[in-house]
């Protein structure tokens, strides 16, 4: 069965303040879906609704045609894996122990890690380029390595849908590209929030543009990243041209918002 997420009229309010306002969309088929928007647009809130961490005030979310509330905890954890934006400082856990957490939805009471599980852990570590990191303390890894170890943990979970909140924050340019290319290569259904619009343009199949809790645009990067929309939503001046490598939009920003330099 094809993986799909459909969201209809999703609202979430905190103290009467709408953080998500009647968001509706349908995503189907393997692909990489980027959620973009300015700070406070509701990107993280949307993801949290998708992985059931917060219960929306109204609206409905279906995954593979089934309402979210119909999944048991275990079923849901086998369908959806999450890489959250921030982790609390972990106690002295090894990389392997962190990755092994992904086994939880597949393990019964008292069962230990068998050879099959170890293979899965090692394959996942290999896939994110951390072979042999098993016994390294997780706390001593660099930002990029931590991010990749967390993705390995999500892979061990064997999900159909992978949700990531800002997987590229705290990473330098090379690791930003590496992590996103890794996600693209994995051939799972990926939904992630991305701050860097040029990165989103280059590597996402479709983009969802949020502004103050509303879905403003959805479509291919070339459809969403227009000079007009970027100006309206982000309040920046820019020109958009085709990227020489992949042909998707490449955004050039204009600087100087204190009226000192010339606007086009």
């Amino acid at each position, binding site marked *: 069965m094809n993986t799909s997420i459909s969201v209809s009229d999703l609202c979430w309010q905190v103290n009467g303040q709408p953080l998500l306002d009647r968001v509706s969309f349908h995503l189907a088929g393997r692909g990489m879906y980027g959620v973009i928007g300015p700070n406070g647009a509701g990107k993280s809130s949307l993801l*949290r609704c998708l992985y059931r961490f917060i219960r929306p005030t109204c609206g409905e979310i279906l995954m593979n045609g089934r309402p979210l509330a119909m999944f048991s905890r275990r079923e849901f954890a086998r369908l959806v894996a999450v890489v959250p934006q921030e982790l609390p400082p972990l*106690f*002295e856990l090894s990389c392997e122990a962190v990755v*092994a957490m992904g086994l939880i939805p597949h393990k019964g009471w*008292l069962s230990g890690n068998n050879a099959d599980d170890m293979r899965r852990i090692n394959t996942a570590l290999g896939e994110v380029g951390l072979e042999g990191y*098993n016994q390294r303390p997780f706390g001593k890894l660099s930002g990029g390595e931590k991010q990749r170890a967390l993705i390995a943990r999500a892979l061990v979970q064997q999900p159909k849908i992978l949700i990531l909140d800002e997987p590229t924050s705290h990473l330098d340019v090379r690791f930003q590209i590496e992590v996103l290319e890794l996600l693209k290569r994995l051939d799972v259904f990926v939904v992630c929030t991305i701050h860097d619009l040029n990165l989103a343009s280059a590597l996402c199949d479709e983009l969802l543009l949020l502004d103050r809790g509303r879905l403003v645009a959805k479509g291919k990067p070339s459809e969403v990243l227009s000079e007009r929309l970027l100006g309206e939503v982000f309040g920046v001046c820019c020109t958009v041209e085709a990227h020489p490598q992949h042909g998707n939009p490449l955004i050039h920003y204009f600087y100087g918002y204190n009226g000192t330099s010339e606007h086009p």
Partner: protein
Amino acid sequence: MRAFSALLRPVEAQGVLTLLLMAACILSMVFAGMFGAADIGFRQAFSVYLHALGAPLPADVAYLDSRILLELRLPRILLAFVCGAGLALSGWALQLVTRNPLADPYLFGISAGASLGAIVVLSLTAGVGASSAAAAAGMAASDSWLSVLTLPTGAFVGASVSVLLVLALSGFGLQSQVERMLLSGVATSFLFSALGSLVLYFSSPQVTASLLFWSLGSFARAAWDTLMVPWLVFGLFVLFLLINRRELLAMSAGDETAHSLGVPVARLRIISLLMCSLMTAVLVASCGGIGFVGLMIPHIVRLMFPARQSLMIVAMLGGLLMVWVDVLARALLPSQELPVGVITAVLGSGFFLVLLFGRRDR
């Protein structure tokens, strides 16, 4: 050397470590049995234990010695062990569940609640005893059958009330659950120690002395029939932790992460708190409020065996430490017992100073 460490793959290394610790536990039971007023040698102690398991008693072991060992010292060693192991595991679990490295078993007002319960019981029994001739000898009040029957019960009830109050104050939702638990724990703690001080202020000096003796911790009350409850609860507690060990570890990685792995975060946190509290309350009731072990052992395990958070290692190390602290308490002064709580507190503060200066050097 390198070939050797390559041989010891991590999993097997953990197995070896566990086996070594088990051996240390058994040897410690024998060694700890040698200390005390009556002189019993290692070989004799060993053969008495074998005798208890069914082997014939050798001719050179006095019958009296074997009785002393089996009726007085062994229950005491077993109580010390279960106390150390239970407190260490309780601290370990609470540190994971609250993501607070300073969490210890008394975090939620348990010791204040238990003290209040103990004070109330001591005051009541002292009041009852005052009319009887037995209480004329002061401290004797706390040794009467009435108090033996109710001091642990009072402490247990007090501890339970404080934990239930913390839970009622912090609610059952997931939103900032940890913070609310910690703050209600602090509030409950202060409230109960204030109440305790108030009752103490109006009671007799004897009650104060008995309370001090009780709160510093001692295994002197150990006997076979009082061992049952702590060990039973300990068994349940270990089973609970074994079943939930993956989930508890996942909770240390944050509520969102644990939630996305299918862990019922809010519910598991409350159940863990209740289990830890039950274990701690039973221990406080039977041997007083012994501090620092629950805080220290999880940190020692993390420092000594990083990345290897086996709960068996935590439990055995905690138990071993307590057995030897009790040996020190019995052996340091020639004709007097030191309070166990004083020794653990000294060890604990020393440990944190080492930790502090160790960190600075890095």
